[in-house]
């Protein structure tokens, strides 16, 4: 099936989310659609899926112009979309989820699950998906759930499969498996659209690349090898992007945070952090690399006073703070960028100003007696918003109206606009686009250049390598290796992360 989008424009009120876009989607080919958050990728695909009617322009399938009154008609036309957030019912089995809405029924209108299971198996075999049709969704890992979504689309006989940010929720291993599936779909003649903002990924998987910025196609590449990541990034952001973090030469100051034989339990008996010792100096970035789930979260919670320590000690500038509360550490000069901005970093329903003082509202600057000094807070928030490039029209906007990147910048603004000594940052750029990543990295480097100690925890090895002066690798709750940030080799660290060093 060959699909052409001709001069598609989609306006919401006066704002054009998609402007005059023309795209060619061919069978047996993966089209990578690259763009920052808010560039119009999702809007464009929602037009293609029949969720939105285009303001102007037309969709042409195999030479015939079509219009979709709703998603149902697009599905019938052979267009299927795998959304970023899965739409599965956790307590149903795979087969039940797959047939939901188009249930095969028997003669007396009963649900023919046996037939459903058979069809799921057939799709499994055809594309090497390996999903048990009888497994309950809630028991499946995220990667497998995504495959169920793919089966759903294929079950509805889609010839065009659209993936919206498919790798955002996957572990590196799952990403590898996922790419294999995409390739087998392509090789069987399906047309694939792969939406992402990750440069590395798109060059790996796409046969052709189109870059969207502010609703317009700003560049196309017939061969991914023909463009470099830097070129793609520039097209996407609209200006040259540097991947190297600019920072002063490494001249560590005195030790600032000293952790000795720290042990933390998860629940009551399982050891999450096992006898960890580490030191963070002033004017130094220490990166902790590791596959997610090897005790990094527990380590950070222990260092920030959020969880109980069962053994060992933590000293900060010579002072024992093992038992100090979160608030006390905060007052001593800790800044903390939590790993999950929505759940622990921000209060999405609160305004930007309120979130800006979430952990400093009690400070004399912002309150007097029992009263909050909201005028002072708002002004300070406005300055921080400008200073940290948080894009918003007003500090009274609720945080949940911001994009992920702006939310993360807001947290960075809150934590780093204070006068702090030590920054602990978990996954500081997870899910962000290139522009935001670059910005946050530069602020972290700046903090270090000004003499702060920085501890970065990230599962993105590239991030660790780009920022760190020293790299520690965490595996099964323990620090298993240490590298010099300037000379470390990606492969060796990768081995250490897998526990083979």
């Amino acid at each position, binding site marked *: 099936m060959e699909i052409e989008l001709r001069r598609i424009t989609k306006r*919401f*009120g006066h*704002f054009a*989310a998609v402007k005059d876009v023309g795209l060619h989607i061919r069978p047996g080919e993966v089209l990578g659609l690259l763009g920052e958050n*808010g560039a119009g990728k999702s809007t464009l695909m929602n037009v293609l899926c029949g969720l939105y009617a285009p303001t102007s322009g037309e969709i042409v399938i195999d030479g015939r112009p079509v219009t979709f009154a709703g998603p149902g008609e697009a599905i019938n036309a052979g267009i299927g979309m795998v959304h970023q957030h899965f739409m599965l019912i956790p307590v149903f089995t795979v087969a039940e989820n797959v047939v939901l809405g188009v249930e095969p029924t028997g003669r007396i209108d009963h649900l023919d699950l046996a037939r459903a299971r058979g069809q799921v198996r057939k799709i499994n075999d055809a594309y090497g998906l390996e999903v048990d049709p009888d497994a309950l969704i809630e028991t499946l890992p995220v990667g497998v759930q995504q495959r169920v979504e793919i089966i759903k689309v294929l079950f509805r006989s889609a010839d065009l499969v659209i993936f919206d940010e498919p790798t955002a929720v996957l572990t590196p291993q799952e990403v590898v498996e996922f790419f294999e599936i995409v390739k087998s779909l392509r090789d069987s003649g399906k047309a694939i659209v792969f939406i992402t903002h990750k440069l590395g990924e798109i060059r790996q998987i796409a046969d052709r690349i189109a870059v969207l910025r*502010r609703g317009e196609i700003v560049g196309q590449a017939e061969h991914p090898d023909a463009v470099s990541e830097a070129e793609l990034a520039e097209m996407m952001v609209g200006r040259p992007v540097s991947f190297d973090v600019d920072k002063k030469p490494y001249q560590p100051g005195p030790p600032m945070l000293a952790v000795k034989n720290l042990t933390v339990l998860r629940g009551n008996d399982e050891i999450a952090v096992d006898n960890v010792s580490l030191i963070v100096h002033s004017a130094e970035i220490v990166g902790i690399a590791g596959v997610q789930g090897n005790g990094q979260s527990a380590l950070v919670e222990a260092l*920030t*006073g*959020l969880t109980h320590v069962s053994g060992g000690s933590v000293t900060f500038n010579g002072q024992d703070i093992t038992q100090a*509360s*979160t*608030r006390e550490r*905060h007052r001593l000069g800790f800044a*903390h960028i*939590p790993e999950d901005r929505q*759940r*622990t*970093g*921000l*209060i*999405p*329903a*609160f305004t930007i100003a*309120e979130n800006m003082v*979430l*952990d400093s*509202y*009690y400070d004399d600057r912002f*309150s007097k007696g*029992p*009263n*909050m000094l*909201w005028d002072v807070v*708002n*002004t300070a*928030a*406005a*300055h921080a*918003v*400008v200073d940290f*490039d948080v*894009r*918003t*029209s*007003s*500090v*009274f*906007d609720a945080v949940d*109206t*911001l*994009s992920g990147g702006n939310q993360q910048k807001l947290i960075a603004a809150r934590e780093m606009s204070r006068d702090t000594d030590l920054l602990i940052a978990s996954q500081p750029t997870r899910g962000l686009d290139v522009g935001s990543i670059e910005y946050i990295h530069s602020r972290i480097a700046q903090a270090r250049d000004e003499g702060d100690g920085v501890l970065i925890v990230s599962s993105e090895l590239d991030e660790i390598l780009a920022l760190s002066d020293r790299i520690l690798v965490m595996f099964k709750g323990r620090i298993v290796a240490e590298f010099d940030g300037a000379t470390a080799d990606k492969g060796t660290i990768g081995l250490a992360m897998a526990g083979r060093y």
Partner: protein
Amino acid sequence: MNNAQESTVGLSEALLRRAAPSRAALEDLVVVPIFAVVVALVLGAAAMLATNVDLATVGRSYVALLNGSVGSVNAISETLTAAVPLTLAGLGIALGFRAGMFNIGAEGQLLIGGMAAVIAGFSFAGLPAIVHVPLVLLAGALAGGLYAAIAGWLRAATGAHEVISTIMLNLISYRLVDYLLRLDFIQREGRSDPISQSVLESAELPRLLIWLDPNLRLHAGVFLMIAAVIVINWLLFKTRLGFEFRASGENPDAARYAGMKAGLIIVLAMGLAGALAGLAGANQVSGVLGRASPGFSAGIGFDAIAVALLGRSHPWGVLLAGLLFGALEAGGRQMQVEAGVSIDLIGIIQALIIVFIAAPLLVRTLFPWGFRKAERAEREE
């Protein structure tokens, strides 16, 4: 969103400008409740018709509802008198909601607060009213607050869910009140049924309108109600403590990460909620009843949950909801007297209002012409 990105050059001044509330927000706050009331009244009429009440009587009963709630000085006095305890206890529930606590225990807190108030009210003979009345109110607030704090402490220390523990505390309070009312020093002399001594005259909240007509029951509790609304509004939105309450309520994890002490906040929020319910109890014994008997809470603590929900947990909203419920109560009485329609119908109408407020989408579907096209509004956000 994308609009915003185009105007990033905005100076601090623009950033400090508050956006006017969106039309959708206004619709939710104003149009939905109005329609909800209207639909509830229409369905109430249908219920009456279904039970063989003729159309003329239905009409008469709604006229009586209006008359009995706002149609005369006495009606307004009755409406306000009924609204005071509902609003006070509703404020407590709303405060709990804001802090993430679902406090079902206002009924029990109200009973315990009322008992403490009645004891303070008949003891301390010879005190001047200016000392005695505040003392009675304080006793009620303190007792209600401590009683509720038990549930807060259980939640903070052991994780016991406050819904369960406050329901259990309600049950305990019923029996406790029965028991207390039979104690010699509380029970009225010469009575063998559980009823307390009457509070002293110096402990009564002064009636405000007896110079007009001795039957007008409106008392100084109405000032208490307004003061409470103002104070809770200030507390929630202008103070550090209120910020902590709201943060913990919206996202307890983020509040904890920000260094707020979850346990302390839970106990404080429950304590304050209970104090307001206790104040409602004190208001009843010292402003309306003059004594305590086993049923003096009269379900106010449960109605207050509906009041808080209807008021969207906002102090001024709670006040409006309290006034509406008070009006329904006072008007319902008149409905029964004049049209002979069962008082139970008022309960049905109240319930229907809550149902429709809780389901704004239902109201939007029923009255599509009352709202801007929802689809467009959402997309423009």
